[in-house]
């Protein structure tokens, strides 16, 4: 008791620590409530405009693989670039979708690169 009374700064420090810890718990709690968690406790992709955009971009890029043979070399090179740009966005997804879309992107990009190489080869 004597120590407590004597060293005023100990009282102040203790109060500060308690206040900060309580504050951080509240803040984290708030954050936990805000994050989107599905029934398995897994963090799903943030619902923002960018989440839908990558899907749209993927559908746009990979829906034309059937016509790959009719594209010019420049167009094919652009498609390959767009696939490469999608890769980091797909890698941020949850485990399931990442697995699925990485595989699909690999095949899609692979085809464009393949057709591009075969066209370049033909020229030689």
């Amino acid at each position, binding site marked *: 008791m004597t120590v407590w009374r004597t060293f005023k700064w100990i009282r102040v420090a203790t109060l500060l620590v308690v206040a900060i810890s309580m504050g951080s718990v509240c803040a984290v709690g708030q954050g936990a409530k805000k994050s989107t968690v599905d029934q398995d406790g897994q963090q799903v992709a943030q619902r923002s405009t960018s989440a839908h955009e990558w899907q749209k971009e993927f559908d746009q890029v990979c*829906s034309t693989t*059937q016509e790959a*043979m009719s594209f010019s070399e420049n167009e094919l090179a652009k498609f390959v670039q767009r696939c490469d740009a999608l890769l980091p966005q797909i890698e941020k997804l949850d485990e*399931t*979708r990442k697995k*699925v879309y990485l595989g699909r992107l690999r095949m899609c990009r*692979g*085809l464009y690169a393949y*057709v591009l190489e075969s066209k370049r080869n033909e020229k030689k």
Partner: protein
Amino acid sequence: MNAKRFAILALLLVFCGLSLAQTGTKKKRPLPYEFGRVVLNNYSEKSDLSPVVFEHWIHRSKFTCRVCHVDIGFAMKAGQTGIRAVDNERGYYCGACHNGKMMVDEKRVFAACSRRVNYEDQKRCDRCHSLGKKVPSDFDFFTFSQPLPKERFGNGIDWEKSEEMGLIKPAAYLDGFTSNKRSLAAQKDFYLNPKVEGMPDIIFSHKKHTVWNGCELCHPEIFMGVKKGSSHYTMVDISEGKSCGACHVNVAFPLTDCQRCHSKPVQP
């Protein structure tokens, strides 16, 4: 002494090596209803379930190869996809169709893999996790295959002719997964010289393959070379599952049907 020991060890190794070789015997040929069966056991036994038995014949009559292997994203080898129950529950892989809502041929497709399982659900689990169990199926192979034109080996069914005759209508499109709706520009058929005296040339029909596979299924993962003749593969490679063997060992018509490929002129 060292030389002797080495010689003995070397000989032992040679014997071991020879004994591990796989070719040279005529193994069991799967029966028509067994051909195309894939057993998946990455996680089943670890979760106290029987391994999954997947039958290709019923699925290939309803969908093209492309829908599953490109649009949904299944790998071409058992165990390589890494399907988990949670993936199915979220509507991917098997769950893309097996979601309890999709209708195929006016029948509701049963849902695969739920987390909360009742006692009654056991039957549903057993429909796929059926290795070693006798599980009644909705589809009987004999009833199914009876009206279809026959071929030898494999499933005993001429799948191409079945489609031509309109007896099967494999869907090339799956809502939510297929982004490609346009039809494929026809690729050229070409012939491959087997470089073995006496064997007829192989007429490879791009058209027949792309109708069901699209482009990405084969290029570049199965066939990497851009120039015809740049990739060399032999029947040994094929029988090990490389190049043509990715499909034509276990699912498409098997390699014993020589004349299906080694056909000159082209079989209609």
